[in-house]
């Protein structure tokens, strides 16, 4: 199963996503993997990462999400659940550090989705909804939002489940049963 969980800042998306990943794993009995996208660029970010890690608990195996997302799942056993948290940060590295255009970004992301299905894994992707605000006028930010929205539409199209989180409450946009 591939799931897409998004919402605003501190809406509770990580908790909802972790619960989803755990539920998938219970059915299969595999391992829980956490694909981290954040780097500790300053003290606030380091504290934020530590808080997330503490909230998740020790059962999660943490890995760095590489820019070449297709290789992110190498060596992970079938039946495991993988949580990518969050796509917004991966997209900002892909865009601003690696200079990916939309075609490269969606191709890298597609490789992750294909690898998920090929390896019989469950994947839950967390992201931020950034596109319902007044956007800054500069082209770099607008280009980034357009890039991120390409990934969001691609993921929403291919995911089995799409969930919006508001104040910790999960709102279903797409579910396997529907």
């Amino acid at each position: 199963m591939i799931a897409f969980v998004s919402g605003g800042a501190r809406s509770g998306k990580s908790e909802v996503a972790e619960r989803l990943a755990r539920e998938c794993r219970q059915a299969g009995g595999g391992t829980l993997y956490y694909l981290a996208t954040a780097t500790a660029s300053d003290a606030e970010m380091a504290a934020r990462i530590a808080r997330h890690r503490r909230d998740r608990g020790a059962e999660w195996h943490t890995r760095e999400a590489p820019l070449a997302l297709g290789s992110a799942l190498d060596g992970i056993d079938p039946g495991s659940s993988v949580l990518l948290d969050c796509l917004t940060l991966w997209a900002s590295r892909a865009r601003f550090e690696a200079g990916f255009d939309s075609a490269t970004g969606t191709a890298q992301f597609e490789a992750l989705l294909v690898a998920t299905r090929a390896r019989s894994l469950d994947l839950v992707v967390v992201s931020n909804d950034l596109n319902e605000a007044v956007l800054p006028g500069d082209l770099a930010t607008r280009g980034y939002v357009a890039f991120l929205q390409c990934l969001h539409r691609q993921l929403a199209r291919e995911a089995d489940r799409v969930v919006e989180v508001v104040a910790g409450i999960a709102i279903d946009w797409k579910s396997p049963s529907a």
Partner: protein
Amino acid sequence: MQLFIGGAGAGKHAAVSERFPTARWHRLTPGDALDAWNESLADGMILVVTGWTAWLEAALAVERDDDRLRGRLVAALETLAVVESEAGSPVVLILPEMGRGIVPMEPELRRLRDLVGWLAQDAAARAEAVWYVRHGLIKALK
């Protein structure tokens, strides 16, 4: 009247194109009269009206009174409703959602986001159907 509302890059245009492949599209031109859409009207053809953000950006630079500008938009919506019933041309509006971020520092952007929000409310109140487009998926709100 039908409304498709969603954020930047949400997939509104694709959603409307898919549902109304034969519709005529009218993109509002900044600085032009709102009823320039009359040129795009044809009996029985669906009319899609888009380009509200750019039109409003230009309009609020000229009209300093937000209530008057909102009033002009409401009048235009009511005209559209009449046109729709008289000409038998269903109208589809594509509207942006931009009200969910931090309050902008620039006064003109605060006005823009207010006017876009009011426009959405005023249009939704008059529409038979309202659709929320989010990451390419669609939910019926009305």
